């Protein structure tokens, strides 16, 4: 995880330098705040990875001499077919239509979205299809 940490931390440092430069030279609030936020967004996961990378043992994908057999075993949960993404998207669709056509669209919108969130979570806990 060292390389990943380094990428994010160097991006974050660059944004930090840039936000300081821009804040004091540009006197412009919006840009200064936005670059500062970009710096934070890089430092948060970057620091997490940096902290972790010192504690975890080398993963097979970070080992330049790894063999494929070293990666054997379950590598993650990959949910198979699921109706919930489509349902959630339709819920989101109605929610934004409420912005345009009237608040009553929030009923199907939030309804579908809530159904999808509950259904999707339950599916995840059950294990889902493969």
């Amino acid at each position, binding site marked *: 995880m060292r390389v990943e940490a380094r990428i994010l931390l160097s991006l974050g440092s660059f944004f930090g330098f840039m936000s300081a430069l*821009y804040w004091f030279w540009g006197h412009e609030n*919006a840009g200064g705040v936005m670059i500062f936020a970009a710096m934070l967004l890089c430092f948060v996961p970057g620091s997490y990875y940096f902290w972790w990378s010192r504690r975890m043992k080398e993963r*097979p994908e970070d080992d330049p001499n790894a063999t*494929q057999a070293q990666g054997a075993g379950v590598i993650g949960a990959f949910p198979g077919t*699921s109706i919930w*993404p489509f349902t*959630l*998207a339709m819920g*989101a669709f109605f929610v934004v239509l409420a912005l345009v056509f009237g608040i009553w669209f929030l009923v199907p919108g939030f309804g579908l979205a809530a159904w999808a969130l509950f259904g999707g979570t339950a599916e995840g806990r059950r294990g889902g299809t493969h």
Partner: protein
Amino acid sequence: MTDVLDPPILAQPGDHGHAHEGPTGILKWLTTTDHKIIGLSYTVTSVIMMVIGGALAEIIRAQLTSSNNSLVSLAQYNELFTMHGSVMIYLFAGPFAFGGLANILVPIQIGAPDMAFPRLNALSYWLYLMGSITMLMGFFTAGGAANFGWVAYAPLSNSINTPGAGADLWIAGLLLTGFSAIFTGVNLTATIFYLRAPGMTMFRMPIFTWNMLVTAILILLAFPVLTAGLIMLYCDRHFGTHIFSVQGGGVPVLWQHIFWFWGHPEVYILALPFFGMVTEIIPVFSRKPVFGYKGMVFATMTIGALSLGVWAHHMFTTGVVLLPFFSIMSFLIAVPTGIKFFNWIGTMWRGEIWFSTAMLMAIGFLFTFLVGGITGIYLASPPIDFFTHDTYFVVAHFHSIVMALVLGAMGGLYYWGPKITGYLLNETIGKMQFWFLFIGIQVFTFPMYLLGLRGMPRRVAAYPLHPSWQTLNELSTVGAVMIGVSTVLFMVNIGYSWKKYPAGDNPWDGHTLEWFTTSPPPHHNFYRLPRIRSERPTWDYNHPDRPAKAHGHHDNQDEVPVV
């Protein structure tokens, strides 16, 4: 030589590339979480959006062909260019780049069975589809679609100046597609960080995957800003806030800061994936490794980092931004782009170049992006920007850039189409498409450079005071028609080549992991994985006697590979 990966997730050779049970037909499409099908859906939808945007463009060009034309009304014209830009940028280029080919290829290129969050991936696609439909619904409202330019500057975009549902549908559509992009950014980052195959260290990933990583980080940094800005705009329009209106103590130019803080990284989000595609095509068709791999990675990260600091070069003429800061940052972005250019040429240098359609598209990309990139350097200079901003010079500049990206996209489709579908496209029709596209692009853009320098401003429906501009406009329309013909040829090629030329696993003698698996890849992508000792695992497997070398070393059977 080949190591077998044992986990139960991988398909067994008995599987015929698809699950035995499970839904079929339309229900299968609605419920799929397979990144290959999602990516293919993204690709098809975004190409449909490209055709819609292209049709709008042809109407614009038809209107502009004569100086006092009345093919469309002033109101319709404003809708035309707004929706042309919006459809092309928000609904075609971005989704094609990070949702289409990247979705299909990134997991396979790093040896993963799928994206890290398959259901989130599916959600991204459906949000994108519904967002596109939402935005296009504007055409069917009474007031018409959005008509304030794809940039929606305040106060033109407020409810006083642009009442009507079209604008709100535009905002609503972008909220959906924005979240779609953010979720894809999360998925790509997680996949690249966590799901690489053993031996696939970060510095052995293909350059396309590196570019997608930087793109994903840029998406995460930039898109939330757009979403926030859109919500602010909506609040100004409907909840009585005065964020962008002077009357209430707001600041109109704040919209521009927020919009362009997203807007400039967005154009690199569009460009970097296609840079990556070209960086995959050129080595394979030169039969050499990528020249300067680490330089490419460094250049991509530099472009990504710098792109967050140049947004106000779109605002030089506002008079309220710090010109020197944005000017020097914009100039500096040219340096890593130049590094990439020389590395591409270095890859071709002393290679054995063969001109398949994909390679022609990639080379066409090089020439076209050269023009677009150099004209961008002009625009980094405020005094020059003062007389080119909001003229056709800028229109020509960014069309050179995006048409170069289209060339890259076509190259990607010709190169990876056989991997995804299992069938090659016809090369003769492909080359005809290439020549119409490449020549059409130059005929389309060069007159616009001159028109801009002669004073033709953007977003004007007619130019009755300047009939001398008509000839150049006519020429540009000819180019646009040629580009349209090339799109038709592409469709013809798909129809003509449908299931005609089976591709096999590796028709191009490709270098990266996707060429190791079958065409199309099986469920969960790999039956077997090779040993990974460089950034070209498939090449090393097929040509173990020809590993990459530092310049000046002669190939020697006994030498240890440099990487």
